Each structure stands twice: as structure tokens, then as C-alpha cells.
């Protein structure tokens, strides 16, 4: 009985909170436009960014430092997973999907297309929606699909090649940042080389993100 009252009180509280949130949002919509117009500020400087898509320009050029820390955080998360994941066990065969020819055939057809889609997303990021994070997620999903179909065993202790792949994006990012420190600011690309530097960083990010996201799954399963 007491628990029922508690649930009702919590529900009332949540409804009240939702009402306040909606009221605040309506209030915000009625405010005058902000003094700083960020889309225009980005648009004025697009020439110097080396890419044609504003979102990529913000993520990899204007706020490159944020993206550098993001890949660092993801790498750190994977290191924690490696620390707690069970090591040295024989990979148990996956009985539910081991002998599923339909799933395996589908995975064999789908995975090359997913890799192609990832490369397309990486390339398209320069001038339209796409980019390293979406491409990396598609790569990671391809590896997870292979694992669930029983074609890719779980990862145990990462070997040297896998370690390099996991860290490649972060290392490439830091290498570019260090090489450009002479410019006087962190991650300030010279406009002539900005496009190719961003593509280099994004290629490394895509590989590492795919491996990290797959690793979060494959080291634990």
C-alpha cells in the first residue's frame, strides 16, 4: 500500500516536471533571437575550413579540440572494458546462431555493403551529412553483425595490430595537432591543407571508432 502511494507521488512529480519543461520551452520560443548568430558566423568562415559542410567544419575545424577529447573518452571507455572483461577463456560457441545458414549468408552479403556505406559516409562528410562518427558506427555494426551470425569469434586479448587500430584515430589526431602547434594555436589548420588534414583525421577516426564500438561488444560477449 505504501509503495503505491510512493509511485503515485513520483508520477505526480514527473507530470509536474514535464509541465514546467513545456512551459519553459514555450517561454524560450517567445524570446528575441540571440545576439550572436552562430550559423552566420560559421558561414562567413567556411572558405578557410577546407570542407563544404558546416557540421563537419564545426566538428573537425572550429571545435576540433572537442572532437579530440571525444575520441579520447571513447578510447578510455574501451580501456575500462578491457580491464573488467574476462581474459584467457576459451570462446564458448554461440549455439543459437552457429548453424544458421540464412543468417550467415545474409551477413556475408550485407557486410561488404556496410563497409562500402561506411567509406561513402566518410567521404560524403566533406560536403554533406555524414562523417567519421556515423561511418565508424556502421563499421562497428558490421562487426557486431558478423559476431551475432557466428562468423567472427569474440575478441579476447587484443594483439598488436588491433591495439594500433584502436588507438590510430586518437594518435593521428594528436600527431596532426602536435605538428600544427607551430601555428600558435591548437588544431588551427593552414587553409590550403585543411581539407586533406581533416580527411586524414577522419579516416583514422573512422577505423578506430569502428574497432572501439565493435570492441565494446566483442570484448564483453
Amino acid at each position: 500500500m505504501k509503495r503505491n502511494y510512493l509511485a503515485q507521488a513520483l508520477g505526480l512529480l514527473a507530470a509536474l516536471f514535464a509541465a514546467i519543461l513545456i512551459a519553459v520551452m514555450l517561454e524560450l520560443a517567445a524570446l528575441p533571437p540571440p545576439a550572436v548568430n552562430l550559423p552566420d558566423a560559421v558561414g562567413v568562415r567556411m572558405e578557410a575550413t577546407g570542407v563544404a559542410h558546416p557540421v563537419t567544419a564545426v566538428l573537425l575545424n572550429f571545435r576540433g579540440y572537442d572532437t579530440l577529447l571525444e575520441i579520447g573518452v571513447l578510447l578510455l571507455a574501451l580501456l575500462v572494458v578491457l580491464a573488467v572483461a574476462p581474459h584467457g577463456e576459451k570462446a564458448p560457441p554461440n549455439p543459437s546462431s552457429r548453424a544458421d545458414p540464412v543468417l550467415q549468408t545474409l551477413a556475408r552479403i550485407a557486410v561488404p555493403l556496410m563497409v562500402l556505406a561506411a567509406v561513402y559516409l566518410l567521404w560524403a562528410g566533406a560536403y554533406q551529412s555524414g562523417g567519421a562518427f556515423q561511418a565508424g558506427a556502421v563499421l562497428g555494426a558490421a562487426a557486431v553483425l558478423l559476431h551475432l551470425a557466428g562468423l567472427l569469434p569474440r575478441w579476447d586479448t587484443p594483439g598488436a595490430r588491433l591495439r594500433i587500430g584502436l588507438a590510430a584515430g586518437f594518435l593521428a589526431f594528436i600527431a596532426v595537432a602536435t605538428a600544427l602547434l607551430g601555428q600558435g594555436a591548437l588544431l588551427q589548420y593552414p587553409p590550403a591543407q585543411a581539407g586533406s588534414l581533416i580527411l586524414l583525421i577522419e579516416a583514422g577516426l573512422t577505423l578506430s571508432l569502428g574497432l572501439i564500438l565493435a570492441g565494446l561488444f566483442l570484448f564483453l560477449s
Partner: protein
Amino acid sequence: MTADLTFDLLLAASLLWSAWRTLATPDIFRAVILFIVFGLLLTLGWARLAAPDIALAEAAIGAGLTGALLLDAIGVLRGGGKKP
């Protein structure tokens, strides 16, 4: 105009409904499937808000990878401690 508004209202209503069902469903498998449905509806929402970059990330990470991870977790839970 009215068609757009109708679609947006339907989308918002189904988002709220699927979010509520995800939390309230006693069957854990149905909850995960509803979570994936919620993620795909949210992708549509981001696309309607003219944010295709976020829509792509939501579809790939939110609905795809997280859904697969949750389904795998259910498999482990129901497998009776096959894996640690």
C-alpha cells in the same frame, strides 16, 4: 501545411507512447524491441527537425548498436549464465 502538422503530431504522440511502453512493459524482450522502435521514430524526428547528421548517428548508434547490445544482453540473461 496541415499534412506536415498532422505528421509531426502523430510522430510526437508515437514517440511519447513508445517511450512509455518501453518503460512500462513487463516483458524485457518486448521492452528492447520497443526501445529500437523508439530509436527509429526519434531518427524520423531529427530528420523532421532538419538535422540529418544527428538522425544518422541516432539510427546507427542509438537504434542499431545499442539495440543489438541489449538483445545480446537478454540472450546472456536467458542463457542461464552461459557467459559471465
